[in-house]
Each structure stands twice: as C-alpha cells, then as structure tokens.
C-alpha cells in the first residue's frame, strides 16, 4: 500500500513540476540569435565565394542546415574553423587542401592607375561595392572597405588589379606573445 502511495506521490509531483517547468519555458522564453546569424557573425564577410556559396550568409545557412562542412572558408583561417567548431559543438576539421588555404595576411585590391581602362567590370564584380569609378574613367578601390576577396581579378580585361597584403602600421601593430624561456627546446 505504502508502495502505491509513494508511486502516486511521485507521479503527482512529476506532473506538477513538469507543468511548472513547461510554463516557465514558455513564459520566460529567451529569444536567442538564430544559429545562422551566429555562424554568420564568425565568418569573415569577405563574400568571396571560395566556399562554393554566393557569399557568407548562404554559407552560414548551409552550415546551419548541415549541408556544408565548416572548413570551407579560407579567409576565416583555422581560427575561424575553431570558432565554428566551438559554436556548433563539432570537432575541428583542417582545410581539405592540406594547408594551402592556411591563414593569409589581410590584403586589399589595388588598381594600377596607368593601366585601368575604366571598363566597370570590377565594379560589378565587387561584392561589397568597394570599387568606385565610372565608365571610361579611372576606377579606384576604397581600401578600407575592400575585403581582399579577389573577385575583381578575373573580370579585369587588362589585368590591372593587384592583391597586395596590408602591412601593419603603428596603429595596427600588435604586441607579440611574450616568449617564455622556461622549458628547454627539446
């Protein structure tokens, strides 16, 4: 008899607590960022399409739908893969090209002014509208907006666009990781 009583008490307790929890879950629901936005926030937004998707957001969507691997974004570097792996609770996957896409210094496109014919093709190719110019007029790259995606290289009929790495200056210079000489180098 006491066995049944205990069972009944437990069952009622479970019901009541379950109801409270269920109510709380609805009442105090936290609107979290959708997964796609979280992934998109990690991606470097170069919009270069090297992942096989037309831009970062589509790639983020694909990752969120588990349609794409997390190691398709060379501009994000291995650090980016790590962050994605952390976010999604997955294992780190190295780039599948054996490290050829390993981290690259931030670079921007530069139009050689003496060669540009003002064809506007690069303007159309630029995913972030970082090239300005008009037909038959010299084009130029707004360096601060350029993501270095290299999409403007191919359309240029006169090969006047170079991708140059952005060097550091005294304002962007970083203090290096201090070298600890505790342990002997084996």
């Amino acid at each position: 008899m006491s066995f049944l009583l205990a069972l009944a008490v437990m069952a009622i307790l479970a019901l009541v607590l379950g109801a409270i929890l269920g109510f709380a879950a609805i009442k105090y629901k936290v609107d979290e960022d959708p997964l796609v936005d979280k992934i998109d926030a990690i991606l470097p937004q170069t919009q270069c399409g090297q992942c096989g998707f037309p831009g970062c957001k589509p790639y983020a969507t694909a990752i969120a739908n588990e349609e794409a691997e997390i190691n398709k974004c060379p501009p994000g570097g291995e650090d980016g893969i790590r962050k994605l792996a952390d976010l999604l609770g997955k294992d780190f996957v190295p780039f599948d090209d054996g490290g050829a896409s390993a981290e690259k210094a931030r670079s921007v496109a530069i139009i050689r002014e003496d060669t540009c014919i003002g064809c506007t093709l690069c303007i159309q190719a630029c995913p972030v509208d970082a090239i300005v110019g008009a037909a038959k007029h010299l084009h130029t790259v707004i360096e601060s907006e350029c993501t270095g995606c290299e999409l403007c290289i191919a359309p240029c009929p006169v090969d006047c666009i170079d991708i140059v790495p952005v060097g550091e200056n005294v304002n962007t210079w970083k203090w290096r990781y201090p070298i600890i000489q505790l342990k002997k180098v084996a």
Partner: protein
Amino acid sequence: MMRTSPHVVKPTPLQLVMLKVAGALLPGIAVYVYVFGAGIVLQLLLATVTALLTEAACLKLRNYPVKPFITDGSAVVTAWLLALSLPPLSSWWMIVLATVIAIGLAKHLYGGLGQNPFNPAMVGFAVMIVSFPAQMGRWNAPLSLLSHELTSWQQFGYILTGQLPQGLAFDTLASATPLDAVKTGLTQQHALPDILQGAIFQAGWLPSEMGWIAAAYLLGGLFLLQQRVIQWHKPVAFLAALLAFSGLFHLIDPARYASPLFHAFSGAAILGAFFIITDPVSAPTTPLGRLIYGALIGLLTWLIRTYGGYPDGVAFAVLIMNIAAPFIDQYTQPAVFGRKRGSVGAKGGKA
C-alpha cells in the same frame, strides 16, 4: 630581442622568499630538538635530500632546466614541513616516501612549481596517515618525561635501522600526543579536566611541551608577517575561527570541549596557520577569499579534531579548502579602482 618596460625590477627573487620561510622555521626546530631530541635533524636532512633528488629527477624527466628550479627552495620548504609533521622517530622510509609523494605526485604530476592545486606537504602527510595510521601514531614522549636516557645517536640509529639499545623497547618511549590523548580520553568517557591531569599536559602556561614548539613557530610566523613574506589574512582568519569555535563550545561544556588555548597550541595549528595554509599556490588570492579560506580551514580543523576520526585536522582541512580555492577566488573578486560601490563607474557587474 627588444627589452620591454618596466626596465627596473625589485630585487626579491623567489630564493629569498623561500630562504626567509626556512629561516622562520629555525626557532621552532630548535625548540623541537630541545623537546624531542636531535632525531628531527636527521628527518629534516633525509627530507631535504629526498626532495632535491625527486625535484631534479622530475625536472629532468619533464625536460625543464634543473638549476633555476632546484635553487628556488620551494622543495626544501615542502620537505621541512613534512619532516616537522611526521613523528620524530618514525623510520627513514616514511619521510622518504612522504617526500617523494609530495614532490613527485602532488607537485610535478600537476605541472610543477605554481601549478599544484593541493599543498604538496599536506598531500604527502595525508597519504601517509591514511596508508600507515599505526606508524604515524607512534610518537615518542618528550625527553623530559622519559625514564631512560635517549641519546642523539640512539635516535638516529632507531630512525635508520629500527633498532633501539638493548633492553629498550619503543613502547617504553611512546606516548600519545596531547590531541591524541584528549581524543582517546573523551571516547573513553573521561572528563576533560581529568584527562588534562596527565603528565604530558604539565608544561607551564601552555598546554604541553609541544605547545612550546608551537610558540616558537608563532615567533617565526610573526617574523614572516613583519617581512611581508606572508600576508595577515589567512593566519588571522584561521586562528580566529579556530579560537572562536573552540572557545564557544568550551564555554558551553568545559568537560567535553578543549579550551581555545589547547587547540591553538596543540598539533599543527600554529605551523599550519603561518607555514602551511599560507602556501600561495593552492590558496585563493583575493583578500576576502583569503579570509574565507583561512576561516573555513579553522572551522574544519576544529570539527575534525572534535568529531572526526583523526586527532588532528589541519592537513585534511587544508586539502578540502584547496579544492575550493578557485571557486572562492571566482566569487570574491575585489572591486577595481573606480568601480567600487557608490562610485561613478560601479555599473558593470561581474559574472
């Protein structure tokens, strides 16, 4: 490589800190020798040699440079604390084993200097008292209470070989420690005042002759405080808690609960307060955290002494609180400059 600021440094190398700690132990050791004989010197020697050898071997194995680490003195301090915690006439292998465990297991397996979550000396002591309770309980009586003479050489011989001179058995030398005596007496339903009539408790102002050793430790501890090698929070909180709880219960029932003075000057209380719990590596670093840490060790020590299975509780109290140190740190972060309560910047709350 470019040099970076600050370009000047205060000359307080780690060695000096450890040297001061070792120096502060000397008065206690001197009184110890007076009370129990020179056996402890051999124990200290054995512990030191073992500690240095173990340290060197571990550093070699871990591919660290041996010299800077072996000379920092931290291993020696650990070894001395262990030697001072074990019975003075225990066999040589006990101190060797305890030291190897302390240095090898509790220190280097966790990553060496600065990385150990537990106080190495207390790990060594705890392992010994759990593994060899009988041997760890074999304390000899103070020399003044012995009916036979026991020379230094006889003590050394006993430590190394286990042999006593003809006609002398260890049982004739043995005596319970004050804490042990009280614990046993109380479990046998004796009243505390009766227990305290025993010979070992006749030592002037202090509860026992071991209390005088503790008093000498106190002297060393005050030296460390004065030298700013240790900060006041932990010893003060520890002793305050120990005294408060023992005092409260002593007032309630003097026949069952020992006096605060007895608790303070028995066992490892003073040694613990100034030399063991002040080990910074395994303790919290925030001022409030240190107070909490010290106070809880004091409380736990009293609880274990009064209700636990072991006569002294310092070692276990320290180990238990070591576990809690990171947690205490996390929740006792002090307000930084300009972000104190009531000031303009006190908005960004902490997690």
